[in-house]
């Protein structure tokens, strides 16, 4: 549960209890999945990074957990161990509502499996917080892209803090796939993100604000992921 393994096919298996600091120190992980790493490294302070894991962040069930949209964008599959054996499911099926997960009594999260990365792939995570550090996302957005000759051949989008659970926004991914990420395609993906929002209205962000920011972050995150996919890091 505390191991980081690179599989023979080029994927990664990250133990559910791997601390963010250990993931950051790994020689290869951040090169292959910079977006997942930046999301995990946003959880808490330096000394919390010494302990905090993506597994804990996911099972905490917060709609605003920073690593979750990035893991969804990465297409992570989780392994769960229970009294009756192991099972696997896509990461987006774990959250069930604020503070709740779909894990059954006695089950624990064991690991995340991240798929092999085709050439020309990049990911990114951005969140909006009113402070500069140590805050809870008002909106969080993870994007993973694969580009071939300038055309987006695969995309996944995760959106946090705008619904009772972190969302996988299929419509946004679809709007990007097959395009050259032209302004119209990105605007369509931003529209899809705004349409997916079912946020709460609170002092940290109104419904209108969170919805608007979801579109803004989709555009900015996609730009970073695309730059990384093109090799610009």
């Amino acid at each position, binding site marked *: 549960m505390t191991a980081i393994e690179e599989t023979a096919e080029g994927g990664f298996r990250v133990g559910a209890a791997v601390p963010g*600091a*250990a993931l950051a120190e790994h020689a290869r992980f951040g090169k292959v999945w910079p977006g997942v790493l930046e999301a995990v490294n946003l959880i*808490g*302070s*330096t*000394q*919390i990074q010494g*302990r905090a894991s993506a597994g804990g962040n996911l099972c905490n069930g917060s709609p605003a957990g920073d690593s979750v949209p990035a893991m969804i964008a990465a297409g992570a599959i989780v392994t769960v161990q229970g009294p009756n054996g192991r099972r696997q499911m896509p990461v987006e099926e774990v959250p069930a509502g604020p503070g709740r997960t779909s894990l059954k009594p006695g089950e624990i999260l064991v690991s995340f499996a991240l798929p092999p990365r085709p050439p020309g792939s990049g990911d990114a995570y951005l969140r909006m917080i009113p402070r500069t550090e*140590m805050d809870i996302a008002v909106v969080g957005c993870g994007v993973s892209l694969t580009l071939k000759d300038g055309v987006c051949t695969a995309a996944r989008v995760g959106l946090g803090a705008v619904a009772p659970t972190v969302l996988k926004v299929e419509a946004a991914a679809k709007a990007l796939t097959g395009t050259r990420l032209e302004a119209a395609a990105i605007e369509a993906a931003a529209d899809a993100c705004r349409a997916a929002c079912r946020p709460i209205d609170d002092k940290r962000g109104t419904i209108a604000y969170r919805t608007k920011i979801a579109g803004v972050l989709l555009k900015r995150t996609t730009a970073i992921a695309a730059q990384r996919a093109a090799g610009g890091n």
Partner: protein
Amino acid sequence: MTKLHVSTTINGEPAEFLCEPGDTMLDALRGPLGLTGSKEGCASGDCGACSITLDDRLVCSCLMLAAEAEGCEIRTIEGMASGDRLHPLQQKFLEMAALQCGICTSGMLVASEALLQKNPRPSEEEVRFWLAGNLCRCTGYDKIVRAVLETAAEMREQGIRESWQ
């Protein structure tokens, strides 16, 4: 419940203690080990007053199970000075009045030492970000940040390296 027997290294010395499975490292330090320099501010990872290093990695000891110390190397504030000789950070905190009530101070010092080991030339911004998990309700942080920057500069001048001790 049966107590667990844990063998570990604390501040360079072998140490053994008994703990409940659910005890935190902070419980063990302040209880059976009698090392009360690490403080309990919040017991939930927010305040950083219980900061220690676990195999050279900065952690909140309230977020670590005591049983996890088995076979590991723990460093606490008690290991920072060399006998009567204060660590340069401790000396500078005193000189520059970078503490008032003192509850946050051991965590601030342990975290600052971890920063200077990793980065002997931090910018003010880097110090502030690194110490964002150490809460202080007295000083307003400025004196702490200045003391860390000043210590870093002096340690560089004097060529005091990571192996200060």
